[in-house]
């Protein structure tokens, strides 16, 4: 039924201490599509997304079981270096977290730590990625200004550019527009639609309309469980589960 599967989550369970946060998750995320994980707040969608690049490792009492296959490799039980796995996935958080350095270095950082330090190469790449997120014209004269001086919308685009610069295959976005003004949000959404021809995008959102605008594939979660998943058309036009139906009607958030 599905084209290439990029990420396959199998029997994933996650506990924070005694709390059972993710319950028996089985999800398939198609390659080079936008997969939206939606659901009311506290349903575990952010946690699910963070387990994909194992940021849940940072949590003091998180326990994971099950498997997450990315391109067939189980990243929960791999001998592969975790930094390599994380590099494969760009992260866009709920609010932008620019690095405490200037605009140029924010993008150069990821390239430099992976060993590419040639000045001319960096200059070219940085211009390329800033253009890709429509930021170049706004910042080309002040690349040496601190990133913190940009507006929140610009910062979020900078974070997207920074993530793209390290050549990921997957983009993980956790409500990336929730802190942004409508115009910046729109820019990000448009970018996603462009980017999906090259990247697998996983978007966590609680904005139903956003999901409808850009989703190809939808995973609906409720209280730590996946209630329903399928193509955007299936879910939005013809949901099978009652919970999905009432969520889509706006009966709960």
């Amino acid at each position, binding site marked *: 039924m599905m084209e290439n599967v990029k990420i396959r989550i199998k029997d994933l369970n996650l506990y924070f201490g005694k709390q059972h946060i993710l319950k028996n998750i089985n999800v398939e995320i198609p390659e080079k599509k936008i997969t939206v994980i939606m659901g009311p707040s506290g349903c575990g969608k952010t946690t699910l997304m963070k387990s994909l690049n194992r940021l849940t490792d940072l949590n003091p009492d998180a326990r994971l079981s099950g498997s997450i296959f990315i391109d067939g490799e189980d990243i929960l039980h791999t001998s592969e270096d975790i*930094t390599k796995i994380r*590099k494969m996935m760009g992260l866009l*958080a709920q609010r932008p*977290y620019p690095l405490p350095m200037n605009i140029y270095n924010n993008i150069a950082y*990821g390239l430099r730590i992976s060993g590419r330090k040639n000045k001319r190469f960096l200059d070219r790449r940085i211009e390329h990625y800033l253009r890709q997120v429509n930021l170049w014209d706004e910042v080309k004269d002040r690349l040496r200004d601190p990133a913190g001086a940009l507006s929140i919308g610009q910062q979020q685009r900078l974070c997207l550019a920074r993530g793209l610069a390290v050549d990921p295959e997957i983009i993980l976005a956790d409500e990336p527009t929730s802190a942004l003004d409508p115009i910046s949000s729109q820019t990000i959404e448009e970018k996603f639609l462009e980017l999906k021809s090259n990247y697998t995008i996983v978007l966590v959102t609680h904005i139903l309309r956003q999901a409808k605008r850009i989703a190809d594939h939808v995973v609906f979660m409720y209280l730590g469980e996946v209630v329903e998943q399928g193509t955007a058309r299936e879910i939005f036009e013809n949901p099978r589960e009652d919970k999905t139906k009432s969520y889509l009607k706006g009966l709960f958030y």
Partner: protein
Amino acid sequence: MDRLKKIEEGFFRVLMFCSTVLIAITLFLIIFSILYKGLPSISWEMISQVPKGGFYFGKEGGILNAIVGSLYLSFGSTFLAAIFGLPLALFMNVHLIRHKKLVNGIRYVLDLLWGVPSIVYGAFGFAIMVYLGIRASLLAGIITVTLFIIPIMVRSIDEVLKPVPRGLLEASLSLGSTRSETSYRVFFKQTLPGIITAVMLSFGRAIGDAASILFTAGYTDYIPTSLHQQTATLPLSIFFQLSSPIPEVQQRAYASALVLIFIILVISILSRLLTRKYQRNQINF
């Protein structure tokens, strides 16, 4: 009810005002009395010469030995403490983020060490010196003072690192950096202004402490030329001169205190300037 609230508000306002004034007056009095007593004895000779024959009887000479000794000692120990302290603080906040209990344990131990009086550090340093057969020296003093200020430095840097949001760590890790790269390239940069303040705080403690160096650094009228020689220090110089029955020497004690305060003032102004410079790139979360 409304009246009661008003009285309460007024009471705390007066209380706050009084304590502020009290603190300000105390500070002013300290500075004033030291200026008043010390300023007349300050001379170029005082800060440019080592003690001559009859210095401790009010004759000529100066406290250059103590000034230089104190600078050696405090810079040396602050440097040493930073070399050990900064990595520890970063380690606690980046690498050990999963191990909350362990980190809190370390914090508790450091807080205990912070509370240990400096004379105990002096006694500890002295015991070790006796055990190893080392005499009082600049090196022994530096090591003792380093032990004394490490808890102060680590905990102050730790407090600066704590509020760095998890999101910044996640952002940096997602770009494929290791935790150490995140520590030194991201967390360090983000908190550098605060780290400078923390280091400055430790420096102030290092240069101002008398008890920890009483047995370990010794005292001499000469400027030390190697780490194995004894060294004079400003706090001890103040102590010795103040305990003299001769009024001129007592006055010089205040002049020495003035020099000490001046050094701390200069260092803190410099650190402010540095802080401002590095604040530029800091992100306000």
